[in-house]
């Protein structure tokens, strides 16, 4: 098995003639957290959508365990073990919480351990455990976000892509979330984390790439968390 689980090799993505991501290369290994930060429109969400097969690449390649997945359909990529917590949650508001979680199970390669994982996410996010028969649309914004994360976790992912998971969460729940991410990382899952909370991300991730207008302009390590000036410089140019 290749040491690197997910590799972006000089990836470019465009919306029509407008480039959204340019010549981006990055790697995530098992048990590693890689952060992706930048201002709005920097290309962070586009990168995650491209990995998931939702956007086609204009150039470059995306490799999972050394195999190109750039031309695969999103459902095939999901079943390989890549899970995305999309921006804006995208839970099913008219479905019960339980049904939303059951949809997460579709990405699993095996049903074995599914009940254990369901138990685990219910312990992680007690608020959703208490509402399993409620319509997901009736949950609070923070609870919906927890449900979106829980849904990704029960798919037993090998690569977890998170698009602003802390958005709309109360600070105590953000702590819970990052504790959970640490637990997932320690299980050997590769995590690619897009966040607005740059400092939190830099401190938590093994590496954090700063994107600006689709270009990777800077890579920071946890030791750079105190260097806010450098980060601000990279954000705004």
């Amino acid at each position, binding site marked *: 098995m290749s040491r690197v689980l997910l590799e972006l090799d000089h990836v470019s993505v465009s919306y029509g003639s407008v480039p959204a991501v340019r010549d981006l290369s990055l790697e995530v290994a098992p048990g590693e957290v890689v952060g992706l930060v930048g201002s709005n429109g920097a290309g962070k969400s586009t990168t995650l959508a491209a990995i998931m097969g939702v956007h086609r690449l204009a150039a470059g390649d995306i490799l999972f365990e050394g195999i190109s997945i750039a031309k695969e359909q999103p459902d095939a990529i999901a079943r390989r073990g890549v899970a995305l917590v999309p921006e804006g949650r995208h839970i099913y508001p008219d479905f019960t919480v339980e049904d939303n979680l059951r949809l997460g199970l*579709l990405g699993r390669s095996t049903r074995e351990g599914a009940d254990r994982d369901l138990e685990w996410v219910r312990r992680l996010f007690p608020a959703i455990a208490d509402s399993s028969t409620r319509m997901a649309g009736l949950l609070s914004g923070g609870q919906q976000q927890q449900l979106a994360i829980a849904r990704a976790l029960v*798919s037993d992912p090998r690569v977890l892509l998170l698009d602003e998971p802390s958005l709309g969460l109360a600070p105590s729940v953000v702590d819970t979330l990052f504790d959970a991410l640490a637990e997932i990382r320690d299980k050997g899952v590769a995590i690619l984390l897009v966040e607005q909370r740059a400092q939190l991300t830099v401190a938590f991730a093994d590496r954090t790439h700063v994107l600006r207008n689709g270009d990777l302009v800077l890579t920071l390590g946890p030791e750079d968390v105190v260097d806010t000036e450098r980060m601000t410089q990279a954000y705004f140019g």
Partner: protein
Amino acid sequence: MSFVQLLIDATALGALLALVAMGIALVFGVMRLVNFAYGELITIGAFTLVLTKGWPIVLRVLAAFVVVIASSLLMEVIFRPLRRATAATMLVATFALSFLLQNMFLFIFGPQGETIEFLAPLNRAIEIGDLRIRWITIIAIALGAVLLGFMSWLLGKTSVGLQMRAAAADFTTARILGVRAGRVIMLAFVLSGFLAAAVTLVLAVQRPLATPNYGFVVLVPALVGVVVGGLGKLVPATLGGFAIGFATVVLGDLLPSGSRVFLNSVLFAIVIIVLLVRPDGLFTGRTGVAERV
């Protein structure tokens, strides 16, 4: 006509159009495709029964199911290159297929059509007091109840149903979660073909002359029902189909006999008013679920 008699007849047509509406809504849900050629599946079923005259009934029923479901799957193959096309392109394509098929039937079977000769004795009525109920009316209601019950079980209680509902509600997210898009779309066409075949069997008894526009005349009111009920959601669309069928019979009874020719005018006037008041559909729920922040 007595009130109970009216209720029974209205329910029978409602059940039939509910099945057609569900067949349309199933495919629309997963492909955002309004299949105008859906009526032609019913016509294909009718002509299958015409061509199998003289066969044992069981074989004719089986042949109708096989041919209609296979035709539905063939439509899926035809529409496959259009999955990423705009809604307007898909709509025009289904229109084109519908008219192509209708003219093929015209060419092969002629404008007069052919008699189907399928289970005609089911048109006999049983009399209970002053009620006269045809056997096929009872069968239509029972079949509607059984099939709608089956579909509701399939969609509500099974994993494949959950996947179909997810694909219908938010296709991109469903794929991201691992729902196999191709398989779900194919299943939607199989199920909608299955419903079309079931509708054919009831219609073949009630309207025993197969003409080139045999299914199209059923498709139009059902499609109106789908829009009135709420396009894009299975239960509201199905209820819309039922409501149109039900309203057609009730209005037909309420209108003075000399004014029956205006039945469609009155019906469509009501539809226009409904859509003006509830543009998202009659059964979609006004409040829905508010966006949470």
